[in-house]
């Protein structure tokens, strides 16, 4: 029963996202356009390879999963639509899971766009490495989706959009996803290790360059637990 409800919910969510092309533009095209711009400006002769897909891909995935689930939830609460769903027997967990899942195809489109630009600027890429990077980025997006839901449960649609954007841009810059940390002032660079996007990008980079993964994995697992608790508390205090 719940699988059928989940699939129905995902379909409705995908339709809603697909029919709002402006939101799609900002979530999908902006990261790809940024990557193309940086690859052209700073790529040099070698272009931006798989390691760049890991860093900018983390930004691309975050721009989708941080914004869509939360804004969609805030909108559903504001309209009273979540009340309608709950009254007709749709389990809340299924509705929220559908919102998180529905963001993933758009994250995949973003990653595909970034990978295509990397292929055009850097030449052939290692397919296995690319797939591992994409897999890690998609799986590692869960804590950010949960944070997005927490914001969506707590704020109105307009406020949630503002809060999530205000979180996204500074955190990706401070985590070294746009520019290498070496280019930032040292005191700013030191902040990165405390930020979840940094650990997501490092985990993805480890698929290309090797290196330790357990520390980053533990940090993201902890963030997932905190995100789930925060989302649950935010929802309990929301006026649905």
């Amino acid at each position, binding site marked *: *029963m719940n699988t*059928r*409800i989940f699939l*129905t*919910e995902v*379909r*409705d969510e995908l*339709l*809603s996202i697909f*029919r*709002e092309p402006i939101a799609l533009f900002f979530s999908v095209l902006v990261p790809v356009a940024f990557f193309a711009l940086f690859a052209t400006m700073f790529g040099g002769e070698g272009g931006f390879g798989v390691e760049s897909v890991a860093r900018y891909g983390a930004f691309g995935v975050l721009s989708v999963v941080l914004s869509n689930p939360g804004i969609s939830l805030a*909108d*559903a609460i*504001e*309209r*009273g*639509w979540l*009340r*309608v769903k*709950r*009254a*007709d*027997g*749709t*389990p809340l967990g299924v509705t929220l899971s559908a919102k998180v899942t529905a963001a993933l195809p758009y994250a995949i489109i973003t990653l595909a766009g970034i990978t295509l630009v990397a292929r055009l600027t850097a030449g052939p890429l290692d397919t296995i490495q690319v797939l591992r990077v994409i897999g890690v980025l998609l799986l590692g997006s869960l804590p950010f989706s949960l944070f997005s839901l927490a914001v969506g449960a707590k704020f109105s649609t307009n406020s949630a959009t503002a809060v999530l954007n205000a979180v996204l841009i500074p955190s990706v810059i401070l985590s070294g996803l746009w520019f290498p940390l070496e280019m930032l002032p040292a005191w700013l660079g030191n902040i990165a290790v405390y930020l979840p996007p940094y650990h997501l990008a490092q985990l993805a980079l480890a698929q290309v360059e090797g290196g330790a993964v357990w520390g980053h994995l533990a940090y993201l697992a902890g963030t997932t637990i905190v995100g789930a608790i925060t989302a649950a508390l935010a929802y309990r205090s929301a006026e*649905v």
Partner: protein
Amino acid sequence: MEHVLEVRGLVHRYGDYTALSGVDLTVKAGECVALLGPNGAGKTTLVRNVIGLIEGNADLIQVAGGSPRRAETRRRLGVVQQAVGFPRSLTVGEIVGSAAARRGLSPEAASRAIAEMGLAGLEKHRAAQLSGGQQQRLQLAMGLVADPVLLVLDEPTEGLDVEARRRFWNTIRRRLDNGAGVLVTTHLVDEAAAVADRVVVVDRGRVVAEGTPDELRRTLSERRISVQTKVPVSVIRTFDSVETVELRDGRTVIATTDSEQVVRRLLDLDPEANDLTVATASLEEVLIAITQHEEVLI
């Protein structure tokens, strides 16, 4: 007859504020119960408990044979809630189709519900662009796909024009005839009097009166006499049991608790008094009296 809704001893608190204090309520199959009361009386809190959105403390809440906190139970209800906005981008067909799919029903069930609510031909329209009346009917269509045993309608005709209201209630009557129970809250007292088999008056979180519309009207002993007479208003005011007297369009209108005695005295003083009618209080007057002087009626 079988109860499709049974609530016993429901208490609901928001922090220190007690919204419901020991409410009992039942709805039988094929029965329409109207929940009336002033703003803040606790009607919406009661409805939200019945449809499982919130949970107070109760000795018993049984809806359609189960607890409303269970999703399976809620799938057997048809609900119209206040202040609902549909998603901007989904169509009528998609919304009702999804409501059917979530319950494991076929698209034909969705088509039947859409047709029953008079929305056929609008399947490809965006729901958010429908008129207020059409949106209310769409919400009910979502609930009708499951052939519900209980319909819970919270201010369902708020903002609807006369024709839209008539169509809405025609559908509800058909469902009542087929054995569904209906619990409806409304501010439109005349509407409640017309459609309800039983009226439950809630005030300050308690049920303060209950009965058929006629039974409730009879609880108010006041009668209204309308007559063409030469007896001056100042004289009529001196009669025992007269509460108010006023002239309205050349007629004298008297509110009294003993209409028989007032009519006798009027005819003694003015044997030519004519066009005399005696009416019981309207349900609205009863409601006002109950909620202003509820201690008399508890």
